[in-house]
């Protein structure tokens, strides 16, 4: 079932980049919104946060360029922004309704690597937040020097922590017979 969802998602994405129609984008976007309206605010915030910078830079640069050469090409600006919004929303909708680990479990090796890497990433992100909070709570004034010292130490800390995590994972995997060797 998960793999079927993955295929449907892939076909939908190809469709969205092949047909250049604003009404198609609006239609797909509206259907996805209606399908899980409860999570719309949460999802749209995440979608906008992930596309805003790139799209703004392209949109503004293109608007300025076309303003000086001919007239602002609003058709393109609306089309590209709607397309990016719809594709990104589709991706987050798909992620919210699919077990990606199961969908990508056709290779055992890749599945192991994906699972362990993802767990390490989550672990790293938690550590990063903890360190940042600890740093803020322990200094009175923010300075560039403090930030430089903090940044250089954080690289070494991340790697040290990842190696210890790796050793623990290695022992746990061997003990549970997940992999041999």
């Amino acid at each position, binding site marked *: 079932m998960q793999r079927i969802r993955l295929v449907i998602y892939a076909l939908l994405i190809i469709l969205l980049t092949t047909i250049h129609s604003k009404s198609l984008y609006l239609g797909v976007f509206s259907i996805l919104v209606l399908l899980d309206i409860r999570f719309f605010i949460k999802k749209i915030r995440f979608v906008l946060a992930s596309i805003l910078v790139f799209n703004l830079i392209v949109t503004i640069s293109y608007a300025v360029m076309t303003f000086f050469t001919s007239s602002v090409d609003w058709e393109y600006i609306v089309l590209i922004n709607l397309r990016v919004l719809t594709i990104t929303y589709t991706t*987050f909708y798909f992620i919210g309704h699919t077990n990606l680990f199961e969908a990508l479990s056709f290779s055992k090796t890749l599945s192991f690597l994906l699972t362990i890497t993802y767990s390490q990433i989550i672990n790293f992100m938690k550590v990063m937040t903890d360190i940042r909070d600890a740093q803020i709570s322990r200094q009175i004034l923010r300075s560039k020097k403090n930030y430089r010292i903090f940044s250089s130490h954080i690289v070494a800390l991340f790697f040290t922590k990842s190696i210890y995590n790796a050793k623990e994972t290695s022992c746990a995997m061997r003990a549970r017979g997940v992999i041999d060797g």
Partner: protein
Amino acid sequence: MHIPDGFISPKVYIPAYAISAGLWAYSATRLKKALSSETLPFLSATTAFSFVLMMVVVPIPGGTTAHALGIGPLSILFGPSMSFLCISLVLLLQALFFGNGGITTLPINALAIGFVGSYSLYYTYRLLIRYEKIAIVISSILSVLLAAVVLAIILGIQPIIGVDESGKPLFFPFGISVTIPAMVVPHIFVGVAEGVLTLIAISVIRRFDRSRILNAKN
């Protein structure tokens, strides 16, 4: 450096998926042979570290973003084919879980950052290995710049191949004359930062266990 969804024509990303699929299959076979309970956690830890480096992004005028790539430790310690696969995995996780990059642009980002970046870094490093620290820095700078050039070319050809009947762009609107300087110039600094980070990362990881890494590479 990642390109988000919607800016690349299917004329580019579908062939890129075909090429990447072949390369992923080859790399997965090599990975399967090298992987054990000793090397898998090391590889995943280095991959996760690469992910952390890639998440720190800075927007660049002209349409894209800059960040360190973290390919140095992966490519030098585990070899370019494993590095390519792991970088692709990082790009997939970023696109699907963190909204950075995209699913249509995954093979393009993977080929530019993972393949071109990893292989150019590895072979430049091997060429200059007598002076290892210099080799790490120079190979890192070169790999970042080459990856940036490949992405700039792919973005820059979109107004040529992805236009409507009236010649208006349907995907990325700026040509190579804009994308190359916009991508390459900021990535000179990114390359230097990448070199320093790789130097630190390799010295830290080697302090722990050199033999496991060499086992994975061979």
